[in-house]
Each structure stands twice: as structure tokens, then as C-alpha cells.
């Protein structure tokens, strides 16, 4: 297909549709809209609740302070505006035609000046407990990569392969049990592999959100562990151009990262807006406290752009992003058989000595991911909002082995030993109905076609997959009530064709099932918020679980799939209790999960004999599994300048059929941090923060599932600081992060290279963030 033609088609379609949306106005199609500003500074105020008492209808202002309430009948209304820390404001307004009414609000004097403003309205479909990373906390971590940035959120850990491959672990689960949404699109990469990191540029995000537990029927049935949402900035709503520049340098690996974006909006008849964003990253060999880690550099370049058109009732958006990375896989981790693995583990330091270099050798990985998305919406005054979306994703993954047996034929040196390609097309339809009897809700249908090809390497076979999903969500929310409820139901049907075995004949596999969620937020008093999430989810077995048949290098194990595996079914219970009062806030989030037919690798009694010796064999099996745990957090403000935070997270996982633990479960983790705020009253924070992380030894591992015992407990000290500066008219923020401040030698159970080398040592990151342009972006 010719892409450019499709683009032009969207654009023309979008413009044509515009003409049809000018509708005649009858008495109950009136609207009230306007901008809400701070009375003193005149700045627009986001997240202000605007409520019409008589109509029992409301809206929340967007980031430019705008609000719109549609579908009003003519009459006189009492408009109430409220905002955290502001005086409540009320005024009578006569609505007889389309009315634009601006308000100003005044901050109360008895409230602390610096207030954390959080949107009270959660998007439909995710009324489940979760956390998000945005603003300065996000920009301080973007240079560390997508997975590592998420680790800043309570209860989120990463499963690592060396220092450059990190996957998020939520409630002890990862890979295909965690759904990653890249700008509203289900990420379809190669998430099944433990050494396959999400193919996403963290600099493209304005927000990284994590929903814990099976709480997202809107996006798929298979998020047994949780959902990670990467949300880019909204396209600019005000005229003019603006942008931002971010630079970071990491001492360990001498890694340089540059990221920038520019965006603009045209006004008048064509309210078109657009953004262009790009990131470049290059790093060399990283270092553990005592030695360099050979071949651990990386090179990455990513870019994305978005073009949007927004009218009152119609909007259209195109988004494209590309992710390209080439990363070295630590040479010391390349082994031929089990004896080599034991030798590597017993050695004091890795066999391959290395110095610093930016050069990448074999073994290495090369990954490309592209996403194209076209989305349009149309609002009908009577029926609500209709949305449709098309997306195409293409993923290429190449793995280059350390050496070819016997010697190297230079002609094949450029060729990878393993090559997977996946192309995914998806179409989504969504109808968000008008609020009826305090009920907001939506119905959706999703169709996805995915084709995976294995061009080289016989680890898993290629497959074709068709998936249809239907879902329905309703949220009950009243401005008067302390309670907010949401329910969701989803049905998925999946057909997979796999060509496997010597005969290469197609095996057709079908799976289907329902998933559901129930969410509740209860605010018994101003200081309390209780969040409950219940959910069921299911996941069909992945191709590797069905058809693997070979030695998994690096793990020195022989993995065998089973074609008769059934689906995994999970029941999830989730609680989040938050108490905030004056200078203290406490958050406790326990969870309990039961998974029926959980798919895992079970050690077999008989090893498999190969020409490289005998390998321990593992077969994919299913068992009933129980997971439970808690993430807890306490913040305490000690006076004006000091802040204390303690965090604890724990998980207990058990295979109930075999009466043993589960592999790769995060160990208990404590974190204490002390923060000094240099300018507590300033708009942009300046702080110095020292944190102590203590990770216990994971003792609850199943017997014979691993060759070496889990590593010992460790403590790390980290330092973070950020400081906003004003250079003439230019505003900028500089920051410093020092991880592993004391250069402690340690190994982490969730790092798959723990057999071969210590984890990375001290790393000093210096970063700079600079808004540019007319409308300064912080």
C-alpha cells in the first residue's frame, strides 16, 4: 500500500467531514463554554470543576482552562465553579443561545500556596487503582529508558537482561501478562520474550500511567498483571508555536541523550495543529564497580509526529512513531552449555575483559518498531461521541549471536541468526453515549489482524492471528455522591493459525472468553479515598508457550512447548486506601490474585542430550497460582522545607498445585527518602533528595528451577536534585541523579545476567530541560 496516499485520504476525509458538522440549533442543543482564570495572575486554570446545578451536568477545564457543557436547554442556570484550594464560586447564568462565559477564581488564603493538583476524573474504562509519572518526576527519569522510568512508581519493578533491557513487572507479572498501550494502541511487539523490552521512546510521553490488576476491559482481556499507558502530550490548543529540548548525560556508559519537540497550532478556519518529536541516544560499555561490562553499549533513535484538527464537534488526528535501537548483549553472558554457565557463575569476574568503548559487537539485538494511527471523533448532541481508529504496527527484531561455529564466513556476518517480523492492523470503533441518569458509558468493538513471521532461527514458528473484541463500560458518578462506580464487560474471540513442525502444516487454534471489571471509588470524608477494583481476565497461550522446542541460550535450558495448553484465567482483587491530612499522606494498596491454569516452565526429570552436552529440560505446564501482596507509601512533611517518604512493597506467589514458589518474583523492597525543598513556594520545584533502597533476598523459589541460588540482599543509596534557572528570558531546569552513590557491588534476582556479572555501579546523570517558543511549556 502507498502510505502517502492514505494520509492524503485521511486529510481530505477530515476536511470534508467538517462541512457536515454545522448543525442547526434547536432549544436543547445549546452550550455554555468559556475559560476559567486565576483572578490574580490571569493564568488559565486547568482541572476546575464547573457544574450546572439545575441540569446536573458538569465539566472539568482542560489544560488551557477551557470548559464546554453541551446539550443544554434554554433557561437560567446556577453555575458553580470549584477547585482544590480555591474559594467556591457561584453565579446565575441565562442560557438562551450559545453562551461563552469566563470566570475567575481566587485561591483561599488559608491553604498552602503549593498545591498538588490532580484531575479527579479518571478516563472511562480505568477506574482501577494505579499511579502515574509525569512532569518533573518523569523528565528526571526519561533518560534511563522506558522500563527503568516506570520503576519510580510504587510497586512497579523491572525484569532486566543486563543494563539496557528492562521490562515492567506489575504485581509480579510481566511480558504478555502486562499490556502496554502506546498512545491508545495496544503495543504489538515481541513482548513474549524475557529479553525483549517494550519498543517505546519514553521521551514521547507526557505521562506514564500504570493500572494495577486486571482493570482494563477497554484495552484487552489479557492484562492479568496490569496495564502501562504511554500518553503523549495533547496537541496544542492555543495558537502559536512552542517546543522543548531535553539533554542528558550519564557517566556510566558515557551515554548521551538528546530529545526535542516543536508544536504549533493554526487558527481561523483551519484549526490544525501538529508536533514533531525526536530522540537520539548513544552509550558505550557500562561498568560494574570492579570491571567494565563488555559489549553493553547501545544506540537508539526515535521520532514521532502528530497532526490534529479539532473543531467543536469533530476532531481528527494522525500519529506516527518510529523506534529504532541496536544494543549490545553483555559478552560474558554468552555461554555454550551448562558447564560454561557454572564456570561463569563461579568466576570472580567475567571471562571477557573489556575497556570502555562505544563500539558494538556480537552478540547484539536490533529492534525496529513503527506505529501509525489515524483517529477521528464526532460529537452528536443527542447521541454522544463516536470515535473510530485505525492503526498499523510493524515490528522487526533481529538477534545476532556471538559467533558462528567453527569460524566466521564474512558474508554471513551481517546476517542475524534470529529474525522475527510482526505486522499488526487494528480497527477500533467506540461510542461514548450521552450521560443518562448519572451514567456515562461506552460501547466498543475492536478487530485486530496480526501476522508474525520467523525469517531466521527456528525457536518459534510463524503465525497469523485474528482477534475480535467487544466491550461495554458504564460509570455511575454524581456530583453529590461520595461514591463512584464503574463496571465493564468484554468478550474476545481469537483464532490463531500456526505453521509448525517438519510437515509445516497449519494448526488452527481458537480461544474465546469473557472478562469483566468492577471499580469503585468511595470518598467518605475530605481526607479519605478508598478505591476498590475487582476483575477477571484471561489470556490465551502465546506461540512460544505452545511451540517452543529448543535450547534457550543464555538460560542454558531446553524449553519445550505444549500445543494443548488452555487459557489462563485470573481473578483479581485490588484495594487502595489513601489518607491525606495536613502534612501527612498514607497510601496502602493490597492485592490478591488467583490464576487458574497459569502457564509456567516446569523442570522435567530427564535432561535433553545435545551435541553440546545435556541441558536441563523445562516443559510449559499449567497450574493454579495465588499471588498476593501490598504496596504501601507514607509521606510526611517536616516543616516547610523537609519531606520524608517511606515505601514498602511485597509479593507472595505460590503454585498451589505443586506447593512451591514461583520463579522471577520480585523480592521485598523498602525505600526511605528524605527530601529538602529549596524553594517551597516556587512554581517549579527545586529539591535535593536522598533515598535508601533495601532489597531483601528472594528465598521463595521453587526447587530445581534455577542453577544457582538467588543473590543476597543489597542496599543502595541514590541522590536526586533538580533546580529551575532563569537565564534572561529563558527558563530551564537542570537536574542531577546519582544512582548507586556508594558504588556498591550487587546482583539483583530480577536481572537475568546475575549469573555472569555484578549489576552496574555508580551512575551520575546530569540533565537539562528547556521550554522554547512563545508559549512556554513546563
Amino acid at each position, binding site marked *: 500500500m502507498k*502510505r502517502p496516499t492514505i494520509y492524503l485520504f485521511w486529510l481530505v476525509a477530515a476536511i470534508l467531514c467538517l462541512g457536515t458538522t454545522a448543525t442547526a440549533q434547536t432549544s436543547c442543543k445549546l452550550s455554555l463554554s468559556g475559560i476559567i482564570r486565576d483572578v490574580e495572575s490571569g493564568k488559565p486554570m486547568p482541572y476546575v470543576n464547573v457544574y450546572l446545578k439545575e441540569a446536573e451536568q458538569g465539566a472539568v477545564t482542560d489544560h488551557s482552562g477551557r470548559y464546554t457543557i453541551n446539550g443544554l436547554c434554554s433557561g437560567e442556570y446556577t453555575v458553580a465553579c470549584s477547585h482544590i484550594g480555591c474559594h467556591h464560586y457561584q453565579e446565575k447564568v441565562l442560557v438562551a443561545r450559545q453562551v461563552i462565559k469566563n470566570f475567575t477564581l481566587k485561591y483561599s488564603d488559608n491553604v498552602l500556596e503549593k498545591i498538588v493538583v490532580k484531575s479527579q476524573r479518571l478516563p472511562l474504562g480505568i477506574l482501577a487503582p494505579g499511579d502515574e509519572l509525569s512532569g518533573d518526576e518523569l523528565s528526571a527519569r526519561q533518560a534511563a529508558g522506558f522500563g527503568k522510568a516506570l520503576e519510580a512508581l510504587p510497586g512497579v519493578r523491572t525484569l532486566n537482561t543486563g543494563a539496557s533491557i528492562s521490562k515492567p513487572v506489575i504485581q509480579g507479572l510481566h511480558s504478555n501478562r502486562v499490556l502496554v498501550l502506546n498512545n491508545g494502541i495496544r503495543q504489538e511487539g515481541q513482548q513474549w520474550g524475557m529479553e525483549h523490552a517494550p519498543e517505546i521512546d519514553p521521551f514521547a510521553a507526557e505521562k506514564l500511567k500504570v493500572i494495577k490488576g486486571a482493570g482494563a476491559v477497554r484495552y484487552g482481556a489479557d492484562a492479568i498483571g496490569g496495564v502501562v499507558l504511554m500518553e503523549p502530550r495533547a496537541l496544542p490548543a492555543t495558537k502559536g508555536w512552542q517546543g522543548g529540548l531535553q539533554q542528558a548525560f550519564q557517566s556510566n556508559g558515557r551515554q548521551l541523550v538528546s530529545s526535542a519537540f516543536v508544536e504549533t497550532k493554526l487558527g481561523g478556519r483551519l484549526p490544525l495543529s501538529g508536533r514533531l518529536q525526536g530522540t537520539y541516544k548513544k552509550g558505550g560499555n557500562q561498568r560494574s564497580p570492579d570491571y567494565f561490562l563488555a559489549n553493553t553499549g547501545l544506540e537508539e533513535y526515535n521520532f514521532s509526529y502528530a*497532526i490534529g484538527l479539532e473543531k467543536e464537534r469533530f476532531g481528527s488526528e494522525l500519529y506516527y512513531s518510529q523506534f529504532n535501537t541496536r544494543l549490545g548483549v553483555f559478552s560474558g553472558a554468552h555461554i*555454550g552449555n551448562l558447564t*560454561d554457565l557454572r564456570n561463569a557463575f563461579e568466576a570472580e569476574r567475567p571471562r571477557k575483559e573489556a575497556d570502555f568503548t562505544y563500539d558494538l559487537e556480537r552478540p547484539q539485538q536490533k529492534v525496529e518498531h513503527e506505529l*501509525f494511527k489515524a483517529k477521528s471523533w464526532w460529537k452528536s448532541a443527542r447521541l454522544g461521541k463516536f470515535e473510530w481508529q485505525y492503526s498499523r504496527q510493524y515490528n522487526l527484531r533481529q538477534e545476532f549471536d556471538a559467533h558462528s561455529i567453527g569460524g566466521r564466513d564474512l558474508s554471513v556476518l551481517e546476517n542475524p541468526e534470529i529474525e522475527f517480523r510482526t505486522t499488526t492492523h487494528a480497527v477500533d470503533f467506540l461510542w461514548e453515549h450521552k450521560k443518562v441518569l448519572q451514567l456515562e458509558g461506552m460501547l466498543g468493538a475492536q478487530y485486530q489482524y496480526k501476522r508474525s513471521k520467523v525469517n531466521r532461527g527456528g525457536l518459534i514458528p510463524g503465525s497469523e492471528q485474528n482477534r475480535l473484541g467487544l466491550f461495554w463500560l458504564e460509570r455511575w458518578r454524581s456530583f453529590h455522591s461520595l461514591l463512584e462506580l464503574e463496571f465493564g464487560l468484554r468478550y474476545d474471540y481469537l483464532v490463531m493459525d500456526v505453521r509448525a513442525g517438519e510437515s509445516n502444516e497449519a494448526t488452527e487454534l481458537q480461544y474465546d472468553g469473557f472478562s469483566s471489571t468492577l471499580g469503585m471509588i468511595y470518598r467518605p470524608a475530605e481526607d479519605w479515598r478508598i478505591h476498590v477494583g475487582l476483575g477477571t481476565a484471561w489470556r490465551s497461550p502465546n506461540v512460544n508457550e505452545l511451540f517452543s522446542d529448543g535450547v534457550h541460550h543464555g538460560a542454558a535450558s531446553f524449553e519445550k512447548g505444549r500445543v494443548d495448553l488452555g487459557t489462563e484465567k485470573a481473578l483479581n482483587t485490588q484495594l487502595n486506601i489513601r489518607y491525606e491530612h495536613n502534612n501527612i499522606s498514607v497510601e496502602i494498596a493490597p492485592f490478591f490474585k488467583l490464576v487458574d491454569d497459569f502457564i509456567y516452565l516446569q523442570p522435567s526429570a530427564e535432561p535433553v542430550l545435545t*551435541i553440546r552436552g545435556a541441558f536441563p529440560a523445562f516443559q510449559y505446564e499449567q497450574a493454579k497460582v495465588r499471588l498476593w501482596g501490598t504496596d504501601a507509601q507514607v509521606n510526611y512533611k517536616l516543616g516547610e522545607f523537609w519531606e520524608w517518604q517511606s515505601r514498602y512493597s511485597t509479593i507472595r506467589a505460590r503454585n498451589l498445585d505443586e506447593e512451591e514458589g514461583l520463579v522471577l518474583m520480585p523480592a521485598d523492597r523498602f525505600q526511605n527518602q528524605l527530601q529538602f525543598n529549596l524553594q517551597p513556594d516556587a512554581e517549579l520545584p527545586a529539591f535535593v533528595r536522598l533515598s535508601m533502597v533495601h532489597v531483601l533476598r528472594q528465598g521463595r523459589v521453587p526447587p530445581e528451577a534455577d542453577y544457582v541460588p538467588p543473590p543476597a540482599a543489597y542496599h543502595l543509596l541514590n541522590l536526586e536534585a533538580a533546580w529551575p534557572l532563569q537565564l534572561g528570558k529563558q527558563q530551564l531546569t537542570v537536574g542531577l541523579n546519582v544512582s548507586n552513590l556508594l558504588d556498591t557491588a550487587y546482583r539483583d534476582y530480577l536481572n537475568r545476567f546475575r549469573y555472569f556479572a555484578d549489576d552496574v555501579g555508580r551512575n551520575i546523570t546530569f540533565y537539562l530541560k528547556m521550554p522554547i517558543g512563545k508559549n512556554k511549556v513546563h
Partner: protein
Amino acid sequence: MYSTNKNSLLSLAVIFLLAGTLFVGCKGDDDAEPDGTDEELITTLKMIFSQGTETLTYTFSDPDGDGGNAPTVDTVVLKAGATYTFDVQVSDESKNPAEDITEEITDEKDEHLFIYTVNGANLTMTIVDQDSNGQPVGLSGAAVTGATGTGTLNVVLKHEPDKTAADPGATGETDIEVTFAVRVE
């Protein structure tokens, strides 16, 4: 500097659109046929013992590679109190014609080392060939048997070992590790 000129904004938007058409390369659609044929594989190791005109060949063979059908392993049967010369041959018999990997090892002698370990049986394996640094390679050598008995012969091929180390077997990466049953009669 920050004045919002409508023309410049329009041109910026045009740039966006151009960028859009340029960057969408629609990366190689995946109709390329799988070409996973040049995968490197060792399937067969042959130990060839010679004495005068008599030649005995014992094979470890796993033609379908890892997994699938189990490999077949011959029992090495040698005469008691005899002196043989031995050679080793490595090949990939999953390909047609079979690929001789011994040649590749011969070309890179300094990067490879065969290690022979005998358990139980009265058999002594001595490597005679050397690489350019005067270090052993193990593609050929002498095998001397003593009294009758049984045991095992373990053959390991190391890639990039430290040949000067006290235990070269603990260094480098293992390309082959096979064990034959041995009977001296």
C-alpha cells in the same frame, strides 16, 4: 523573535505534512520468504582410530539438531594393549551435502581446543597437533590402551579458550560436549 506570523505557521504545517509523507517508509512489508537455511549447526562428531590399515570410526550423531529425536552414540571399542592414532571430524549433516566443519576448525586452530577426558577405562589420549603458538589443538593424536575394562571418553570442543590456563576447560565457550562409552577388550 516570537512573533506569530501566519505565513510562517502555515509553512511549518506544510513541513509537518511533508515530514509525514517522507517518514512513512512503510518498512519492508513482511512478504519475504523465510530464509532460515544458513543456521550454523553441528550435528555429528566422529572419532576415527587407526592402527596400520585398520580404521575404526565411532560416531555421535544428532542429525535433527537439538531436541526432536534423541542423538545416537556409538560405543568406542578398542583392543587392549594397543597404540592407535586418532583423528576427529566434525560436520553438519542436517545440510545436503553435509558441511565439513573440521575445515573451519583447521583454519582457526588457535581459537579452538579439543579436550579429552577418560574415566574408568585404561585409555590415554595424547594430543599431538599444535597451533601457530605451539599450543595443542586436538584434531589428531595418539590413543594408547592398557588392560581390558570399561569406562567413558568425554570430548569437549572449546571456542576461544585460554590454552595456557591451569584448567583450559574452565575457560572459553563450549561448542561440543559429548560422552562415549568405552570398552577395551
